[in-house]
């Protein structure tokens, strides 16, 4: 079979049923990126996720990302309508969605085009393309198909035309509903995956439906496998190492929701907003079973106030949102800070400013959460770097909120929100929960804000506790929670609230360094870019470059020891998914260049000339892009030595 010309595959399609064996190249791979695209509703999502699960069960590293169209019901066969999945599998742990795709499966040529135009396919990438359009009644469609196919072939893609429709029609009345399982079978064949696992997966996902559904989907799966076996001239093996402990595969938003459940928080007040809402959807579904409640408020301000009210009564509540919603909560959060009500806030960042790019990836809200509420309003700011972090950071956040009577903001982002990755199954511990709400009488003489002179901490007491009656206020107040405009008292309160951050900082450990602690170049990152940065660094280190990275989990307070780390390197840059002026822009110089959030914070604190590389392209930063950028810098550093 000739992969360059599309013709033979079509010929195959004609020879349906004949299973002449094809010469196979079995190649062993370290990692591979697969994209599956369809019109929305055709099931590419389910196919991709199932493929990811099977690979994960096999013991492969896996990272899956959703490809979501911007519209709810985009027109069929449209460039903007690509809906599907990107799956990256590897022989080791996979921490990000990777670079351009190695294989693209497409249910029509237009959705494929969308990805080609976006530069998401590797040059020469394998394309498995549904060929039903070639002979479509509508000549325009047939023409589009032929044109695109020829263009791709001309551009060097290895296009295989696959008779998905024809093959599936043999098995099911409506192939549109079955193609995705056919494709799953193909992929299992291509990646030499165990078909038993694939059958189990089908049983699992259609578990609630009847046996007939399962068997017909298994038939489609097997047909796909068989077609690939008979018609494709390549086959891969990605060596797998079975995990020794149970693994779960979930996305970042589900991890946040499960973290909320596991942390013992029992009220989540929210208002829908992309890309945060799916966390609340999931919680709405599972929370009640454990006595928790998701309250959909009339807006984000109400959600924030509601959570504050709930927290005030003794247990920490959580509110989940994204950028625009966070902006609206700014005033309410100031109240929580001032009154020292513990609260957990999740901001799943999206593209900004304003409504911006609701479904797209960006890390634009770091300074917003640190400084956005008027006056000095210190809060804890954390950023998970992995899906697993998304889960555990909720437990940590709840505990910190409660210990310090502070607002704790967890900054996730659109890339973590929908990405899936296996990680060790959490083992619940009762320590994750807070002690029951204290309803004992308050001892005489204890005050509601008995700020410890060093740490700023005070014990809070809550409604129901006899002898603890006081009125909490967002006005400046004394230790008795009485309104006070006295200069000393105001300073005391400000100090106490600020000292709590210093106290927390003292118990944090320095961030680990990925690589050596000294070298030419240090990359500092935060949040969802962790995997991409570390992959790029690892690759460069493998090539012998003296580059390391460190990833910050706490942005406020910052972990200790960072200054020492920075000073171990000749150059330090941050890699961030937010805006920074380009020093090469004609009007830009050091007196006006706008630095990205983390670089600004590090420069200010450590007076180190931290440079940056950032991207606001609405998609996850690729390890290859970081790699190229770092290699350029290293070359410069190494020659300028």
């Amino acid at each position, binding site marked *: 079979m000739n992969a360059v010309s599309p013709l033979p595959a079509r010929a195959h399609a004609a020879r349906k049923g004949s299973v002449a064996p094809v010469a196979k190249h079995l190649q062993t791979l370290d990692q591979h990126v697969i994209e599956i695209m369809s019109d929305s509703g055709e099931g590419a999502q389910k196919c991709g996720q199932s493929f990811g699960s099977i690979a*994960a*069960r096999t*013991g492969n590293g896996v990272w899956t990302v959703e490809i979501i169209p911007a519209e709810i019901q985009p027109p069929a066969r449209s460039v903007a309508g690509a809906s599907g999945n990107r799956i990256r599998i590897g022989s080791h742990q996979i921490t990000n969605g990777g670079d351009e795709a190695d294989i693209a499966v497409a249910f029509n040529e237009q959705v494929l085009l969308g990805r080609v135009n976006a530069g998401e396919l590797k040059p020469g990438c394998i394309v498995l393309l549904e060929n039903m359009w070639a002979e479509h009644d509508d000549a325009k469609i047939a023409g589009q198909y032929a044109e695109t196919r020829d263009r791709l072939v001309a551009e060097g893609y290895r296009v295989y035309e696959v008779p998905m429709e024809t093959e599936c029609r043999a098995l099911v009345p409506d192939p549109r509903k079955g193609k995705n399982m056919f494709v799953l079978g193909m992929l299992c064949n291509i990646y030499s995956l165990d078909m038993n696992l694939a059958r189990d997966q089908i049983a699992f996902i259609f578990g609630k439906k009847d046996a007939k559904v399962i068997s017909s989907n298994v038939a489609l799966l097997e047909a796909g496998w068989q077609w690939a076996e008979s018609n494709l001239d390549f086959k891969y093996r990605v060596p797998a190492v*079975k995990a020794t402990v*149970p*693994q*779960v*595969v*979930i996305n970042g938003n589900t991890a946040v929701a*499960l973290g909320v*459940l*596991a942390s*013992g928080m*029992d*009220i989540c*007040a929210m208002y829908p907003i992309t890309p945060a809402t799916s966390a609340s959807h999931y919680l709405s579904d*599972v929370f009640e*079973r*454990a*006595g928790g*409640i998701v*309250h959909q*408020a*009339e807006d984000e*301000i*109400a959600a924030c*106030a*509601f959570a*504050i*009210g*709930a*927290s*005030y*009564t*003794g*247990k920490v*509540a959580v509110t989940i949102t994204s950028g625009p919603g966070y902006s609206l909560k700014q*005033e*309410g959060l100031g*109240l929580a800070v001032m009154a020292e009500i513990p609260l957990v806030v999740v901001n799943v960042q999206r593209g900004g400013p304003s409504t911006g790019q609701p479904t797209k990836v960006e890390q634009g809200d770091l300074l917003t959460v640190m400084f956005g509420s008027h006056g000095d309003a210190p809060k804890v700011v954390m950023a998970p770097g992995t899906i697993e972090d998304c889960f555990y950071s909720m437990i940590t956040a709840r505990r910190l909120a409660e210990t310090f009577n502070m607002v704790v903001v967890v900054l996730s982002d659109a890339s973590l929100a929908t990405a899936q990755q*296996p990680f060790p*199954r*959490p083992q*619940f511990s*009762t320590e994750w*929960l807070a002690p029951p709400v204290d*309803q*004992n*009488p308050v001892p005489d003489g204890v005050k509601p804000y008995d700020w410890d002179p060093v740490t700023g901490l005070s014990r809070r007491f809550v*409604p129901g*506790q*006899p*002898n*603890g*009656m*006081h*009125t*909490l*206020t*967002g006005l400046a107040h004394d230790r008795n929670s009485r309104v006070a405009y006295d200069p000393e008292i105001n300073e005391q309160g400000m100090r106490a609230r600020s000292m709590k951050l210093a106290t927390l900082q003292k118990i944090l450990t320095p961030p680990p360094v990925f690589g050596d602690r000294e070298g030419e170049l240090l990359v500092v990152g935060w949040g969802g870019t962790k995997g991409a940065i570390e992959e790029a660094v690892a690759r460069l280190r493998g090539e012998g470059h003296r580059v390391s990275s460190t990833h910050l989990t706490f942005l406020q307070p910052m972990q200790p020891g960072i200054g020492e780390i920075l000073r171990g390197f000749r150059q330090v840059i941050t890699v961030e998914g937010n805006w920074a002026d380009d020093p090469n822009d004609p009007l830009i110089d050091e007196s006006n260049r706008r630095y990205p959030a983390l670089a600004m914070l590090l420069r200010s604190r450590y007076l180190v000339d931290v440079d940056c590389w950032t991207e606001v392209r609405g998609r996850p930063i690729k390890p290859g892009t970081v790699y190229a950028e770092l290699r350029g810098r290293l070359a410069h550093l190494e020659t300028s030595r």
Partner: protein
Amino acid sequence: MSAATLCLQHFAEENHALEDYQGGVPRWCKGCGDNAILAAMQRLCRDEGLRPEKTVFVSGIGCSSRLPHYMRTYGFHGIHGRALPIAEGIKLARPDLHVFVNTGDGDCCNIGAAHWIHAIRYNMNMTVLLHDNHIYGLTKKQASPTSPIGTRSNTTPRGSYLDALSPLTVTLGVQNVSFVAQAVDWIPESLFHILTAAYRHRGFSFVRILQRCPEFVGNMFEPWVHDPQRMLMLTHADGIRVSPALQKIYRNQLPHDPADINRAREIASSDDPIPVGILYRNPEVPCYEDLRGAGKLRTADQVRGALDAELDKFTVWPQ
């Protein structure tokens, strides 16, 4: 029996005196109607035997929102306009607490208007006191949405432009409304009775209280204060009791069945004479906290169970 339980019992048995509910010394202006509202609230707490530690007064920002500071219960003096959602969070987390809300005409009907509409709809069991002085007091005299047209204020030096918004008709326009009443600060007895009825109603009890602000709109209610005939007392077996003494003074009375919402809306639509009493009550509207099963006990085992059940679904290896 644990110390806590003992202690709770102890408190439950106690009888409270008015002083037990008196907090800081009120700092309102002389003659401010908020004083009468405070007095009525303290009396209500005593007469209904509310345990101070189980009672929370929630407020926004404004003169009226200072009230919690003057109670010796728990209090939450929040931010402008957000008293209601804060109170809802409290009630959902702790249905065992008695929740009262003090809010001003600016706080509730302007900046807080969205929360107000939705609080009516949630119908959580709490008592809401709208201190309606027809002006912004704390910020020193700006028109509020309930200021009558032509009110001269610092932002409307040539008189306000719009007809006043009626908190009553708006409230009565919202689905799930379950209790709406009107009281005035200058008839303390009726104020107390109306608040008591509001407190006893299980659901969102909204009481608009016409409240004098002598500092900034000294003449606002004078014609009504001085002419009892310009007050319209709503009477009904299901309404509130108008004492014989009051009946003698306020002879302008209107029988009104609080179950009749159409009539309630009509009565609410006119403000001279000022209707006083219960406009609408529907004890059948379910409370949100009940619908949501709030206050369920939640054990570590439940959390573990729910978490494990979910993790089971996502566990890929070993299954």
